[in-house]
């Protein structure tokens, strides 16, 4: 964007102003109070309106009032500008009505709708076109005098640039904001992971309150529990009371019932005596029946029935086992035949032979095993012998009983490892040292000795150079004096000429004497000044000549000192010295490496000799000292070691197999001898041990089979005896039954029963016995009843019992009022003692319950007192939780803000630093007169520069104030362009930004600004007329002059204008602007 024109109807001190801007460089010049700042503000108002960062209505009103025309009139302005794409616009602002119109200057179209509006309705022209807010535009693109003045403080450049990069403000760095955020976090929340601070205190308070609330709730639960207990105990008391009352009633009822029963029993006894006497009379005819033989008859009849039943049972069993009996008899015959056969095969076998059979079997088995194992042992011995032969053939003469190749292999490995390690180290060292030998040591020593004197030479050269510079500087000063004195001398001559003319006219025109005197005085002064000037100039010229000669002498000295070394300056010699030292260090290193390599190679050779001698002592060929040969020998030794191990193993196996074979033969012979002796002792044939043993074993087995068959025969005989028993027992039982029948017939006859049929006889006996028995029972009961009746209290008992029943009935009626009848009925069946026991027990329970209830009430009151104000606790806990939640959000927010800002600052600086450096790099040399060419921007935006003849960078704070301020200005402009991004290049408004620049720097700065003007339009505000004069001499500058306040005349209608062309500006310098 390039401003082309501003028309101000009324704005602060400016009224009716029409100014045209040049496309690149503009200088607004005018004395103090001429309205430069107001014009700057008017430009801002044209772009952004009057709204500032404080977007409130009161702030807007305040700004409106501030910039309202001082002399009244319409409050408004119009700003015209051209965009990069060629679009020309005009923004007209009526600042009273707060209305804005944007029009296309070429087409005249209204563009107001193209722009967004802020909350207060303002059209955001500047923000949309320049891409930044008014605040940022002001902070970045507008550079004020006060800002440049701050550069005087050390570190202020870095601080200001960092603040701009961080916040587009001149005093708000990310670091300060981070510090502030951290401090606020500690103050409001506490340190991260700290054990103090508000968050921690609140958490502790919450824990305490929750503990109190839990205690209160526990007390509330305890209250509920205690109240429940109290109620249950009260209910228990009531229940126990009711039970005791019921038990009392039950006791009375029980006693009443007892009295009634006793009375009833008395009446019943009287009735029973009369009834029993009547029954006795009915059975009196059987009084003499022989009841004493009843038991005998019963027993005989029982025996008879049992005997008859047993007889029948035996007979049935005999019939059932008849078939089995026949089968057993047949089996017995078969078994007897088989037993006889086996006894024939076991002839000669007796008990002693059978006892010896296990020993014979064992001997026979062992003999068989020994005979079977003998061929296998023989085969193993033969295989081992064959392997031994093969191994011996592979290494003729090298493998044998006394050659321990395993130990030799280990020793070879040790020696080989040592040689191999030394060999490798030597090869590597040789590789490092290089194939060729280093320069000769003597030559090196010579060079070192020669260069020892170089520092002195350099020092002498530097002294000569310093003298040259000093003389040159003094000569320059003398030249300056010479030039100054020349001026004085010319002035003196002028004065003298003027005095001569005045004196001439005085003499010619008869002027007053005092004028003539003055003229002669001037003449004298002029002559004197000219004389002095000639004298001083001559002295200065001599001084210049002397200094130049001294400089030449110094140059000659330097040449004499440095020429032998083939250099022209001490710097070159210094460089040569550095290169020489590097070379010396290189050669020394190579020599040392070669020495080390030789030493290592010698050690490797010693190790190789030891290895060859060792191998030779074993009868092997000595290997050449090469990797291949030694490794071949190593493989041979290893093969020998492995074959030796295999030879030893095969030899051991052959010995073991031969030994086993011999042992088996001896064992077989011994077993045969034992078998012969055992069989001989038992009387068996001894012609062949194995066959005889086999026959003996077969005979023994036959003897055992015969014995088993005989045992089975005995079992069959026993079974035959057992099966034949029932028939025998049936006969015996029949005899016993006949005896019983005869005894019964004798008893029945004596009782007068003569029936022949056994069943009818038994019935007649039973009937007569029952009658006789009834008679006896009636008699005895009658006696008992009579005895009981006579033993009681007699006739008074009935009376007293009736009286007791009457009394108890009356008491019962009183006690049973309100008693649970069902429960009472439940107690009715309990005995009196049990009732009394239960009554006493429930009385004790009731008293215990009453005591417990009193205790529960006491505890209840205590717990109630402990509950406290739960509602307030609940509220406080909720409040603290709310605060905690907010604090946790705050803590998270602080951490997030700090982390994000740190990250953002890093990324922005990573982006800004290279661009800043690129822009400054090209501008640094011109403004520092070529002294500084390299610039470095640190991570913290620290600016460092490097002179051409210096090796290290120096901080920009160490430069002169003028240089510093210019660098700052350029850095600020560069940053403004970076922050502006890809939007329209913003016009840069510089207010007295060259305040620290001297003439040379000012010229350089104007040149640089001129170059910048190709990208960004620059409007420089200044009261410095000298600056205006310089700008006039430069190209592409448009000068706008604002008249001072004394010249402002409100009565004049003609507006201050400058026109667009430079010529017109020149003309308007003479025209009052207002």
């Amino acid at each position, binding site marked *: 964007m390039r401003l082309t024109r501003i028309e101000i109807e009324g704005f602060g001190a400016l009224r009716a102003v029409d100014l045209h801007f040049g496309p690149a460089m503009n200088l607004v010049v005018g004395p103090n109070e001429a309205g430069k700042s107001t014009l700057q503000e008017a430009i801002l108002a044209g772009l952004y309106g009057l709204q500032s960062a404080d977007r409130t209505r009161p702030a807007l009103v305040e700004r409106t009032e501030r910039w309202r025309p001082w002399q009244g009139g319409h409050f408004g302005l119009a700003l015209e500008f051209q965009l990069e794409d060629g679009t020309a616009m005009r923004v007209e602002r009526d600042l009273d009505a707060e209305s804005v119109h944007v029009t296309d200057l070429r087409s005249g179209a209204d563009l107001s709708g193209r722009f967004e509006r802020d909350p207060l309705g303002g059209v955001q022209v500047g923000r949309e076109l320049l891409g930044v807010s008014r605040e940022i535009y002001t902070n970045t693109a507008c550079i004020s005098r006060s800002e440049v003045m701050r550069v005087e403080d050390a570190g202020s450049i870095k601080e200001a640039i960092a603040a701009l990069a961080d916040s587009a403000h001149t005093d708000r760095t990310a670091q300060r904001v981070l510090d502030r955020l951290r401090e606020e976090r500690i103050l409001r929340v506490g340190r991260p992971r700290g054990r103090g601070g508000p968050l921690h205190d609140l958490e502790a308070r919450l824990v305490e309150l929750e503990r109190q609330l839990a205690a209160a709730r526990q007390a509330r639960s305890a209250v509920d529990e205690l109240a429940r207990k109290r109620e249950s105990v009260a209910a228990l008391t009531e229940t126990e009371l009711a039970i005791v009352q019921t038990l009392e009633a039950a006791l009375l009822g029980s006693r009443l019932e007892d009295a009634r029963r006793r009375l009833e029993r008395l009446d019943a006894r009287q009735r029973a005596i009369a009834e029993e006497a009547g029954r006795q009379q009915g059975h009196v005819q059987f009084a003499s029946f022989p009841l004493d033989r009843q038991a005998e008859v019963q027993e005989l009849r029982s025996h008879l029935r049992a005997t008859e039943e047993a007889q029948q049972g035996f007979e049935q069993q005999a019939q059932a086992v008849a078939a089995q009996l026949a089968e057993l008899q047949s089996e017995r015959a078969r078994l007897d035949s088989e037993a006889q056969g086996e006894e024939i095969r076991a002839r000669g076998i007796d008990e002693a032979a059978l006892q010896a059979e296990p020993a014979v079997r064992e001997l026979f088995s062992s003999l068989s095993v020994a005979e079977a194992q003998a061929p296998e042992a023989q085969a193993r011995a033969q295989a081992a012998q064959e392997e031994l032969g093969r191994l011996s053939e592979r290494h003729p003469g090298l493998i044998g009983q006394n050659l321990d190749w395993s130990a030799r292999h280990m020793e070879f490995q040790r020696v080989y490892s040592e040689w191999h390690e030394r060999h490798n180290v030597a090869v590597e060292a040789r590789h490092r040292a290089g194939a060729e030998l280093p320069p000769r040591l003597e030559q090196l020593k010579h060079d070192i000795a020669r260069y020892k004197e170089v520092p002195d030479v350099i020092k002498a050269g530097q002294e000569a150079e310093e003298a040259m510079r000093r003389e040159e500087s003094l000569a320059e000063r003398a030249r300056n004096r010479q030039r100054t004195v020349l001026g004085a001398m010319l002035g003196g001559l002028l004065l003298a000429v003027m005095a001569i003319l005045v004196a001439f006219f005085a003499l010619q025109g008869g002027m007053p004497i005092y004028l003539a005197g003055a003229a002669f005085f001037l003449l004298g002064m002029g002559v004197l000044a000219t004389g002095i000037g000639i004298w001083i100039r001559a002295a200065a010229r001599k001084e210049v000549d002397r200094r130049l000669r001294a400089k030449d002498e110094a140059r000659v000295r330097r040449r004499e000192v440095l020429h032998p070394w083939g250099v022209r300056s001490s710097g070159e010699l210094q460089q040569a010295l550095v290169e020489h030292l590097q070379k010396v260090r290189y050669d020394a290193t190579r020599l040392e490496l070669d020495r080390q390599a030789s030493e290592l190679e010698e050690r490797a050779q010693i190790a190789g000799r030891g290895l060859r001698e060792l191998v030779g002592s074993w009868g092997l060929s000595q290997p050449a000292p090469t990797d291949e040969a030694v490794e071949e020998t190593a493989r041979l030794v290893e093969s020998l070691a492995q074959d030796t191990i295999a030879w030893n193993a095969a030899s051991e196996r052959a010995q073991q197999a031969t030994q086993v074979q011999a042992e088996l033969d001896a064992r077989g012979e011994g077993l045969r001898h034992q078998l012969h002796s055992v069989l001989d002792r038992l009387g068996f044939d001894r012609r062949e041990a194995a066959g005889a043993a086999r026959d003996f074993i077969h005979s023994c087995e036959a003897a055992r089979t015969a014995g088993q068959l005989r045992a089975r025969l005995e079992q069959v005989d026993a079974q035959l005896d057992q099966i034949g028993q029932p028939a025998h027992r049936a006969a015996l039982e029949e005899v016993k039954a006949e005896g019983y029948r005869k005894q019964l017939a004798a008893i029945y006859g004596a009782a007068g029963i003569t029936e022949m049929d056994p069943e009818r006889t038994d019935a007649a006996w039973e009937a007569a016995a029952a009658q006789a028995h009834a008679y006896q029972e009636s008699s005895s009961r009658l006696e008992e009843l009579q005895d009981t009746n006579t033993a009681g209290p007699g006739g008074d008992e009935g009376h007293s019992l009736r009286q007791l029943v009457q009394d108890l009935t009356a008491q019962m009626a009183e006690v049973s009022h309100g008693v649970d009848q069902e429960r009472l009925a439940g107690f009715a069946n309990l005995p009196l003692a049990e009732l009394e026991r239960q009554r006493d027990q429930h009385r004790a329970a009731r008293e215990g319950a009453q005591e417990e209830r009193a205790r529960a009430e006491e505890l209840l009151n205590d717990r109630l007192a402990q509950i406290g104000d739960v509602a307030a606790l609940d509220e406080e806990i909720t409040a603290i939780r709310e605060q905690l939640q907010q604090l946790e959000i705050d803590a998270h927010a602080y951490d997030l803000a700090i982390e*994000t800002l740190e990250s953002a600052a890093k990324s922005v600086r990573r982006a800004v630093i290279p661009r800043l450096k690129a822009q400054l790099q090209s501008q640094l040399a011109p403004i520092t007169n070529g002294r500084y060419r390299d610039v470095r921007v640190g991570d913290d935006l620290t600016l460092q520069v490097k002179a051409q003849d210096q090796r290290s960078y120096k901080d920009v704070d160490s430069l002169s104030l003028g240089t510093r301020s210019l660098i700052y200005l350029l850095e600020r402009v560069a940053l403004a362009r970076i922050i502006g991004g890809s939007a329209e290049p913003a016009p840069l408004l510089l207010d007295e930004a060259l305040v620290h620049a001297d003439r040379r720097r000012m010229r350089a700065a104007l040149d640089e600004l001129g170059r910048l003007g190709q990208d960004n339009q620059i409007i420089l505000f200044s009261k410095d007329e000298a600056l205006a004069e310089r700008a006039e001499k430069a190209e592409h500058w448009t000068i706008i002059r604002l008249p001072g306040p004394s010249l402002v005349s409100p009565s004049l209608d003609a507006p201050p204008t400058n026109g667009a062309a430079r010529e017109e500006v020149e003309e308007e310098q003479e025209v009052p602007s207002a």
Partner: protein
Amino acid sequence: MALRLLHFADLHLDRSFASERLFGVGAQRRRDDLRSALNRIVARARDEAVDVITCGGDLFEHDHVTRDTGNFVTQTLGEAGRPVLIAPGHADPALPGSPYRYMRWPSNVTIAAHEELRPYRYRGVDLWSAGFMRPAVTEAPLRDFARLDQGINLLLLHASDMSAVPEGTPSFKPLTPDQVREAGFQHALLGHYHDARASDLITYPGSPEPLTWGGAVRHCTALVVVADDGRTEVTLEDVAERQFVREVIDITGMTSREQVREAMLTLRDGKQLQGAVVQATLVGERVPALELDPKTLSAECGDGFSYLEFRDRSRVSHDLEAVAQEFTSRGEMVRKLVERQPEAVHDQAAVARALQLALDAFEQ
């Protein structure tokens, strides 16, 4: 005239106002107001010369009630000089640990500590009542109730009229006007709904004092006059002494505390909030220079209020869109934070807060 009675309910003595975010002095003041309301109810009963006072439950809050409050209730109702019939509600169920059961109540106070409906006769009128014996009773009390054909019968319960359930109110002991009529009751005096309402058959007097913020509802006692022929006349009379309101004040554009105070006083006079308990929330965007300390503001603006509490939800205005366009560390930070899209609400709040804190720090 057969009977005059004064019915109230839902006093909720010893209530915690944590759910209303009212803490400390403000909450304690509300609890004191609730006690004062009981005194006013008893005084009104004396003034109206009623024969009986009835309470439709939730006289106090079982979880928070103190022994001191129990003593206060027994003393206040004992000095009423007339019978008092209380039907325990869901907030004050007659559990073993309830003051209804462990305290000695005056002889004129009767607690309907039973779950089934039982009649209590006053001047020939049967007041059928039942209480909560556990915190939550969802069974319908009139479902199997045998119709009453004789005499004048009123129903006293803590129950929910299902024909008009307020939003967000849980239902206990549900009943309907039809059930009340079919059961033979001339009128039902109920408790549970905190806004006063009366119809031909059902009366809720509401809570005597507002228990939640705001709401244009009435808080009353019900004067019930039962004629000899059973006709019932119900008059609702407001009994609340204080307003309990939340207000929002937009401080956008205000530049001094004096302006905030003026706004508060204007609000007080405009809405007649004298003597009210007020929680004022400050919202909007404020200028950085305007520092607001809620406690100081409460002290400065508290004249005429029973209790005034400020909550500052305002924020320093920042043009996030503009800042995000800056090629600066600040702009980069805003872009990074805005681009974060945390899922949890907690994290969203933290991101917004981080933006506010960081930008405030840049402004300081």
